[in-house]
């Protein structure tokens, strides 16, 4: 079952005098349950591509279909709502809400979705347990290590059971030990919950864990390999 189809997507930045062709005709399909890495040198267009997939940015041309829904057809408020229900995000610099505890950060989207309090608590606890932070549920981000914060971010991204999770260089700020833990957790959640993960990275160890590796250069896909 396809959760995501990218059809001949281009992104051209026109901001200054120079025209930047950040994404140059990318077509990709993703099945449910994939664990895919997007790799490529700096400036190759990884972030731009992920932002367009996540509906944070709009393609100059081409189509992005999430669960057969064309993102271009959604108005900005509907798009935000769509993101909330269907896409989980993990950012390079964790981006947790600093005034909220780990538990509250994970709960946040569920509360926006008006989940029932009991279900919410149950899911939050389940996720924090899955990322190995059940003993830190009441800690604020400033009291957690980078690795722990990123694990909270993963738990948050999964909270509302999205169709897929996008992670732009999730391990870039982590040491190798934390990177390994995070990847293991992501992989386990991917297997258990069947959630699709798409992440960009520079890190060879991260690439090794991926079951599909998409290489981009100058805004174009130059290889797309699946491992078993």
């Amino acid at each position: 079952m396809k959760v995501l189809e990218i059809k001949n997507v281009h992104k051209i930045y026109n901001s200054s005098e120079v025209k930047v062709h950040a994404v140059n005709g990318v077509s990709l399909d993703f099945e449910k349950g994939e664990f895919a890495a997007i790799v490529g040198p700096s400036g190759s267009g990884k972030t731009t591509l992920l932002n367009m997939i996540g509906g944070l940015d709009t393609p100059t041309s081409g189509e992005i279909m999430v669960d057969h829904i064309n993102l271009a057809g959604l108005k900005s408020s509907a798009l935000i709502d769509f993101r909330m229900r269907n896409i989980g995000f993990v950012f390079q610099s964790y981006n947790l809400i600093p005034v909220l505890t780990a538990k509250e950060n994970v709960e946040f989207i569920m509360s926006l979705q008006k989940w029932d309090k009991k279900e919410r608590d149950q899911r939050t606890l389940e996720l924090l347990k899955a990322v190995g932070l059940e003993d830190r549920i009441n800690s604020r981000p400033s009291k957690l290590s980078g690795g722990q914060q990123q694990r909270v971010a993963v738990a948050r991204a999964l909270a509302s059971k999205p169709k897929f999770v996008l992670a732009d260089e999730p391990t870039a700020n982590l040491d190798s030990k934390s990177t390994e833990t995070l990847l293991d957790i992501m992989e386990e959640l991917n297997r258990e919950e069947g959630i699709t993960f798409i992440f960009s990275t520079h890190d060879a160890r991260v690439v090794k864990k991926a079951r599909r590796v998409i290489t981009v250069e100058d805004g174009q896909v130059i290889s797309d390999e699946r491992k078993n």
Partner: protein
Amino acid sequence: MIWKTAWKNVWRNKVRSLVVIISITIGIFGGIFGVAVMNGAIAQRVDAALNEEISHIHINDPAFRDNYDIQLLIHNHEQVLTTILETPGVNSVSSRTLITGMANTATKSAGVQIIGIDPEKEKEVMRLNETTIPGTGDFFETASRHNLAYIGEALAKELNIIRYRIDEAVLDSLAAQELPVEVLDKLVPFSGKRFTSEKAFKNEVKGVLSMKEQREYGALIKEEAWSFRTRSKMTLTFLDSEQMQTGAVFRIAGIFDIKNSIFEMGQVLVKNEDLSILTGLAANDYHQMIVRLDDVESTEEVTAALSGKFPGMEVMNWKEIQPDLAMMTDMVQKMYAIFMVIILAALAFGIVNTMLMVVLERTKELGMLTAIGMNKKRVFRMIMLESIFLSMVGGVAGMIVSKILIGLTATRGINFASYAEGFEAMGFAAHIYPSISTSFFITVTVLIIITGVLSSIYPALKALKLDPSEALRTE
């Protein structure tokens, strides 16, 4: 969750939030307290004017106030009196004879209005009897075979109804103020001696003290040694009903102190029975009736009713007699408004400025929130809530501080003693009891909330303009 997050966000930068909150608190407190002090001063002023100076309503011949013609009497006084007393809202009435004349003592004289009254009736309408300076006598209570006059402090000083005396009490009080023993010793010999003129007293003091001692302690000694002369004599002269110059000696029954030097200077109250013998008017001839109402609020109503009943007479209420009192109340209302507008504007700028900073600082976080699905309505609401919380905390703190301080000072009052002279010259008491109405408090609360809400709109709109992909790229 949004409420909780907004509330927690307020305390994110504790120092900045506290600075904003404290400045709002101080602003609100300053505004409310300032208004309370003004309000208290005005209320006291109006109260004093009504109780001690003019009462609520005056009734007299329409031409009487032009030149206080002694012949312009109230006709059918008994009947008029009954009619007034029957009017709803009227509390009491006092009838007065008003004569323009001169008050003279051996050394000084002053132009005054001599007011003939029945002390018992007058006490029902005015509260002047309650303002007698202790030790100076009373309001015609002590019987006397002499003519009696009740005069103000300022007039008593002007007429030099003062004596100087150094007695035990004065020496004790001087000692307490650290007058050197050798100076005290020099003063002891003329203990008990009285001086009726300042000059005589000064000469005596000069005789015993050295130049240096005089320079250093002269003023203090004088200040301690003077007091009002009781039962002192003064002559009142005026024209009688036949336009003949007449006059008589009056003794001072008592001296009143009403914090309004103009009234203190200009009025001499005497018993009508003493005055009528001199003027040649009948005992029940009066020029003016003054009326006290049960409630000041009914002033206009009762004035209209009385005007209707006495078409041939002038019926004037306190607002017409002293337009400045009414105007003052009016003007102060406008001043409150200006005051509050300034404070609320400062509040608004504070909030807008702080919240813009907040939005700018949190660009990335707000971008992240939009990315993960927090819609514009919610982002807007969160920033609004933060600003409102911030202004509310400051507002509430300001209100509480004001309430407490007004509560504390309302009963004890604030003494502006160092400005006493200036205040009294304007007719204001130097001891002010701040007061504020509950309705003003509620109005201010509502205004703070409205200001808080309005000033949140701009920063919250700014937050909506953020593009999540851009916001997330900013490191």
